[in-house]
């Protein structure tokens, strides 16, 4: 079979990846991804250069030498309760370079979560078959040994590591994949923790074919190129660990097909690795204890973990991770200042907490990881709905005719540009971010790999600068041109002369309600004073309609937090292909099968709206399809740049204010081997999961 590329994990994987630059993306409609996380993220700071990147694993074939293991495990081996370490490791253990020094075994990480189910911790202990590199420059093999595509991209082959085992000692093979695919995904009766996302479907919407030629090979076959599809797994937590990590030997005892007494409900209940102590896992730590009230989680080292350091010590160094659930952010912040947590990723609040955490660092015995950024391309940024329809009760006269007028206004790029020119971003930063930050237009994450090359940097700078200067005169000239005259109350009316009020929805998007409230109050005051546009702030925190107003196209502007590292696996902020963000209805049309969708009686927008030919949404959807059919990563970056040109030309679609704030990520002084660089806003790389926490250790 012809394989265009082989990414092997043996020596040189990194070189290959870098040199050929290419893997291959594919096309796939977007799968639903978890909704905006409620909590994370952070603030603004001068752009700091990412410093170090870790090298990709440079496995050297295992020295015949000796492998070492944690003392507790050694004791178990002695007692005969555990096979020797050599037998527990895969045939070729993955040699993982450490950042600072070879570590010592021992210690328990205490940390916290606001997220029932402690997703923010699962996020970084999950290790997918294909993972993001620590420096975010691309992907590399993780759990899998290698992967490759056929020349046409329609066949994708994943090679598993020989001898790799689940945490209970059973081998991890393609049989587990087969069980997952044949007995869970393709079993329509099963509704549990799996997904049947668009990236595992063919062009007609049916599931792709999956073959399992031997114990260590999984082959995906589709009728369209899958250059991008496998990279979805790199979001290791909700794209891989939850829906794909299925231990066949364990789950078969709950599957009706194998155990006649079991029911699908049993299976569904058992199939929750994040809630089930003893569920076999593949990661450095697996869940072993969960308190009855669900408030305390303990993850203990996996004796069969497959990575070793350069000296042959089996990882992880740390014995266990203890997580407590603390939903009140202020309580977590206090705990952080008191040094209660050994590592604190995404739990100590946002950028505005930095001064408080700084002054307590010495007392609390912790240090800052200085180069952690939010990765926000806009925080806050105001999405402008590109297909406004009636139903949101924004006006007493909430008719399709009125909605059409407002829609025309929101789709008029002069209006959006006027809003952008009418904002004094410096003052916004003063109000929202303590006066520290960089004023910019809305983009995706500055750290995105699409911008890594010099050309990419150019594109990024152009995008960030577009319409971002404060120029009320220009703004007012644009509004006059549209025909928005001032009414009796001094505020501009619609071109038809009807009174106009711009409604700005806000929630705690980005993790800070206060930031959004203050920003909206300031934006309201500025738009009213600078442009004469009457603004109403609609605080929807905790209200069910916060999201339906967006998905049904009933909002006008909405305060958002935008960050994305890879636009092919999380396309929403550029490509309108799902029912979300700036093009909710046009995206819905794309996601629901375009013209094949059947309208629900009485719901005129249940199939979305087909973009008019030549409209921004139509152009961006076409570019998305072009990208999915583009073979190399480099060429796909170019498609992203093309899309950005469309956005600059037709935009802005998001009125950005500031971005890329620094985040307060703190660790105790004795923590070692933790990379001082990361981007916590975008979920794709599961930061710090991309830097292999198994190499962390405690120097005490």
């Amino acid at each position: 079979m012809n394989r265009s590329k082989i990414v092997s994990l043996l020596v040189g994987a990194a070189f290959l990846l870098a040199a050929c630059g290419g893997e291959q993306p594919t096309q796939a409609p977007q799968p639903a991804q978890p909704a905006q996380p409620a909590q994370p993220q952070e603030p603004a700071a001068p752009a700091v250069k990412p410093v170090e990147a870790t090298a990709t694993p440079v496995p050297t074939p295992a020295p015949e030498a000796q492998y070492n293991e944690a003392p507790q495990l050694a004791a178990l081996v002695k007692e005969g309760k555990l096979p020797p370490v050599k037998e527990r490791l895969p045939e070729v253990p993955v040699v993982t370079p450490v950042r600072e020094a070879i570590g010592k075994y021992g210690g328990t990480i205490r940390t916290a979560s606001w997220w029932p189910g402690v997703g923010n911790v699962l996020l970084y202990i999950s290790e997918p078959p294909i993972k993001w590199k620590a420096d975010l420059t691309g992907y590399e093999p993780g759990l899998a040994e290698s992967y490759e595509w056929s020349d046409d991209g329609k066949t994708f082959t994943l090679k598993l590591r020989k001898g790799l085992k689940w945490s209970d000692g059973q081998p991890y093979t393609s049989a587990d994949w087969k069980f997952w695919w044949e007995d869970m995904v393709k079993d329509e009766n099963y509704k549990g923790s799996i997904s049947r996302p668009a990236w595992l479907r063919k062009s007609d919407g049916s599931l792709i074919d999956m073959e399992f030629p031997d114990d260590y090979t999984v082959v995906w076959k589709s009728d369209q190129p899958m250059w991008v599809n496998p990279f979805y797994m790199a979001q290791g937590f909700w794209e891989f660990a939850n829906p794909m990590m299925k231990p066949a030997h364990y789950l078969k005892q709950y599957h009706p097909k194998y155990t006649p007494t079991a029911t699908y409900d049993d299976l569904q209940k058992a199939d929750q690795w994040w809630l089930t102590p003893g569920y076999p896992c593949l990661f450095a730590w697996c869940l072993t204890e969960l308190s009855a009230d669900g408030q305390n989680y303990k993850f203990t080292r996996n004796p069969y973990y497959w990575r070793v350091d350069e000296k042959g010590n089996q990882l992880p160094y740390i014995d266990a991770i203890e997580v407590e659930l603390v939903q009140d952010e202020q309580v977590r912040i206090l705990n952080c200042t008191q040094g209660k947590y050994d590592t604190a990723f995404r739990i100590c609040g946002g950028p505005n907490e930095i001064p408080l955490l700084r002054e307590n660092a010495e007392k609390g015995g912790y240090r800052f990881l200085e180069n952690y950024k939010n990765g926000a391309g806009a925080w806050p940024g105001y999405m402008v709905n590109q297909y406004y329809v009636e139903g949101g009760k924004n006006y007493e006269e909430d008719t399709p005719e009125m909605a059409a007028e407002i829609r025309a206004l929101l789709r008029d790029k002069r209006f959006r540009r006027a809003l952008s020119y009418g904002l004094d971003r410096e003052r916004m930063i003063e109000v929202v971010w303590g006066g520290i930050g960089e004023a910019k237009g809305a983009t995706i994450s500055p750290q995105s790999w699409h911008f890594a090359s010099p050309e990419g940097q150019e594109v990024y700078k152009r995008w960030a600068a577009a319409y971002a200067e404060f120029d009320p005169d220009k703004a007012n000239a644009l509004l006059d041109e549209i025909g928005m005259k001032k009414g009796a109350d001094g505020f501009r009316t619609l071109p038809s002369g009807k009174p106009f009020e711009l409604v700005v929805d806000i929630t705690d998007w980005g993790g800070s309600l206060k930031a959004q409230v203050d920003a909206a109050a300031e934006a309201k005051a500025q738009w009213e004073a600078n442009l004469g546009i009457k603004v109403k702030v609609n605080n929807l925190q905790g209200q069910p309609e916060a999201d339906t107003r967006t998905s049904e196209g009933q909002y006008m502007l909405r305060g958002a937090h935008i960050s994305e590292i890879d636009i092919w696996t999380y396309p929403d902020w550029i490509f309108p292909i799902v029912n979300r963000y700036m093009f909710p209805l046009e995206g819905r049309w794309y996601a629901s099968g375009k013209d094949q969708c059947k309208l629900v009686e009485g719901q005129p927008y249940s199939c979305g709206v087909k973009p008019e030919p030549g409209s921004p949404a139509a152009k961006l959807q076409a570019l998305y399809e072009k990208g999915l059919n583009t073979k190399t990563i480099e060429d796909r970056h170019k498609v992203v740049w093309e899309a950005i040109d469309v956005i600059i030309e037709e935009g802005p679609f998001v009125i950005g204010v500031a971005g890329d704030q620094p985040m307060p990520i703190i660790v105790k002084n004795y923590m070692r081997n933790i990379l001082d660089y990361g981007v916590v806003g975008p979920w794709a790389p599961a930061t710090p999961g991309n830097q292999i926490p198994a190499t962390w250790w405690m120097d005490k």
Partner: protein
Amino acid sequence: MAVATAPSSVSLVKKKELGQSYWDLVWYRFKKNRLGVLGAVLLFVLYFSFVVIPEFLAPYALENRSRYVEAPPTPIQFLDEEGRFQAPFVYGLERRVDQVKRLRTWVPDTTKKYPVALFAQGDEYMLLGLIPMNVHLFGLQTSDKDARIFLLGADALGRDYLSRILYGGRLSLMIGLLGQFLTLALGVTLGVISGYYGGPVDMFVQRFTEFLAAFPNIPLFMALSAAIPAFWSPITVYFMLTIILAFLGWGGLARQVRGLVLSLREREYALAAKSFGASDRRIMFRHLLPGTMSHVIVIATLSIPGMILAETALSWLGLGLRPPLTSWGTLLQDAATVRAIRFTPWLLWVVPPILLTILTYNMLGDGLRDALDPYSGRG
């Protein structure tokens, strides 16, 4: 069969001796209760300041934003740098940014001094919504547009916090009143009817109050606040919600009034009225209702602060009023973070007015309870 008795000669004599009506006695008794009087006076002052003339008392308009974001209070100075006595003034503020701590602070700029004056001219406003004015109780006398006096500091948009507390009081003090009034009217009327008629009427009213009492308020509040059109202003929304809550909340009062009426209707004067052929309505509302008033007034004075606290609490939870409205509850929301307590502790200045209001209502209520029952043994 009850026998109507003639007015007792004893009470006639007593009345003559004292020469006082019931309300005279109440007033006499109330005056003697110093705490009660103090409460009444303070309450009047509070309502007058926060509801009637906050625009005059506040040095700035509510939405007067300045560049001094989160500036600390600027104390009024009487001594200059060399210790000489001067007419009162405040120093200007200078912005400092600590790039390492990432902290912005404001320090006094002693090169700039702005004299403070009483009855200074400032932002325009309409007194009582009618009289255009621009005189404020105090302010700075300066042509420098950037100059500000922040007796209690500034908030995240650079607005004067003292002014915000003053304006916020209007909403907080007023919002519960109408709802409370409705509660009282419904509770008293239905309570009297239920107690007087008894039987099936009583049964029906009582079961109905139980039905209403079974509604959980906070989930109801959440559901309602979601069901209300977005073009309503947040204040209308909240107002409607309090009214709805009032319709749900009269049950307790109705029960207490019913209990009182059950005993009052057997008193001689009630029986007398009945034997004279007075209508039911007259008996209920002329004869029985006044007998419950002392109780009702106390309930009212004690539950209005409950409404104020409820506003504060619900707003603080994000369910009641929301920014951009300014009320004490929304102000409290801003102060409820570790960061605020450490870096902007002046945001806690909203607490004293809340405490004071609750305290004065309770003082007044206590005084009224004693006074309204002038024949009781005490004093």
